């Protein structure tokens, strides 16, 4: 389980994989977060993370 955060006010739309492995369009709301399963990780999401469009929240502190 990952959590991705969109820190801008505008929503980000991406293609991710659903549980069946099919590409589906998803929305990361503006100033919002979304839980992303490992299986949903796709190049589109990786690219958004690499570009800083989205950020991955750090793991919870102990």
């Amino acid at each position: 389980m990952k959590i991705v955060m969109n820190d801008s006010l505008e929503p980000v739309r991406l293609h991710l994989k659903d549980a069946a492995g099919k590409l589906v369009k998803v929305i990361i709301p503006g100033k919002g977060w979304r839980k992303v399963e490992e299986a949903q990780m796709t190049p589109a999401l990786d690219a958004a993370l690499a570009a800083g469009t989205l950020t991955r929240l750090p793991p919870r502190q102990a």
Partner: protein
Amino acid sequence: MARHETDDNIITDKATGLQWVKNPRLILPGFTGSLGVSQGFWSPTAGTYTARNLVMVSSSQQFARGQAMAEGAVYLHAFDEYLGGGDSTWYKCLQGYTPNARQPGVDAGWASYWAAVDFFEGQENITYSAGNLRVSWMDFNLYICISGYTTGENPDDPSVDTTHWASAMSSVVEWEEDQDWSVNDVVGSEFGSFYRCTTAHTGTYRRPGTAAAEGYWQVFAKGYGPITITNPQWNWYTNDPRYLPLYLYCKQTHTAASDKGPGNATYWGVYDPFWWVVCPPDWYNLVPPGWNAYNAMDGGESFWALFGHNATLDAMNALVYEGNDDWRMPNALEALTRVSFETWTLFDDHQDEGVVNPTAVISTMGPEQATQRLVVSGNGSAMPYYDAMLYNPPYGVQATFGIPYPVRGGVLPQ
């Protein structure tokens, strides 16, 4: 025995059931003769619009969040995979308005009305006051601070620290259209975020098809859907049926004026030459009511000739006279000799594929190949049939020929 039979208007290939009509140009309700010409996108200052000519309604004219709607204009209520809703139907706006919905996280300007609720910071020296909201790292639920405090080192997550935090999930509601919102209302989104209302407001889109739209929208014409998009790549091409322009045909010659726009059914009717070619094969009977010039030819079954407006198509579809009042369909090689490649470019020859899937072929074309082209899947002269399509960006596939589509039309030999 002749392979084909005809009633002098229709030729039927008895081997396949495919039918050819005598004059596929008779496709405008109320008119005879060929189509007129396209006069581009409709404009109130375009001068004279002539009967039988065509205009386009821009694909940008879509019902959209935060977009002001103009009275009398026609908008496409596009199917919306992101946020639900949308019925691919064109609506005429009866009363102009500016929508004021501010769905948190989604609509433009939402941040003036809502504040996103943060995660629990999980750090020391953070001071919380009673009433503060935070999202748990543990269960992702919403918690409210019930007793103010300042965190020490490695503070407990709100889901654990029951001394200072209590679940606030019971106060969370779903955001809805056409709703009054008060300060401190908390909504949860389907995306996993929580938002707190910071400014009281009423939000509505007057989305067509909802109660809020009553008096504001009137169905104008059925669009191209519902469309099930199974390949996300489809959206990256301009042939996404949802974004094709709406074509209108001019019912009577008139001088362009703002009150004689696409929403005025006295002057404009819906023309949809792509109705079947952009649909899956089993949708080929999706012809609007009134478009039944050939409906009687086979007892209401699904054979239509809708593409007689293009000289290339006419040439491609012309039957071959074999003598003794018999005709046959041209084979691939014959068809190719009829195409002017100054206009249409041969894109590919899928000799081995047999039946071609137009969408699959399109998917192999990048949008950078934005030129008119003919895509041919020929089976050679040994087969009397061929599979081909005309691909004409930005309008996508304009016509297909071949086995997958039991829809044919053409010009009888003179």
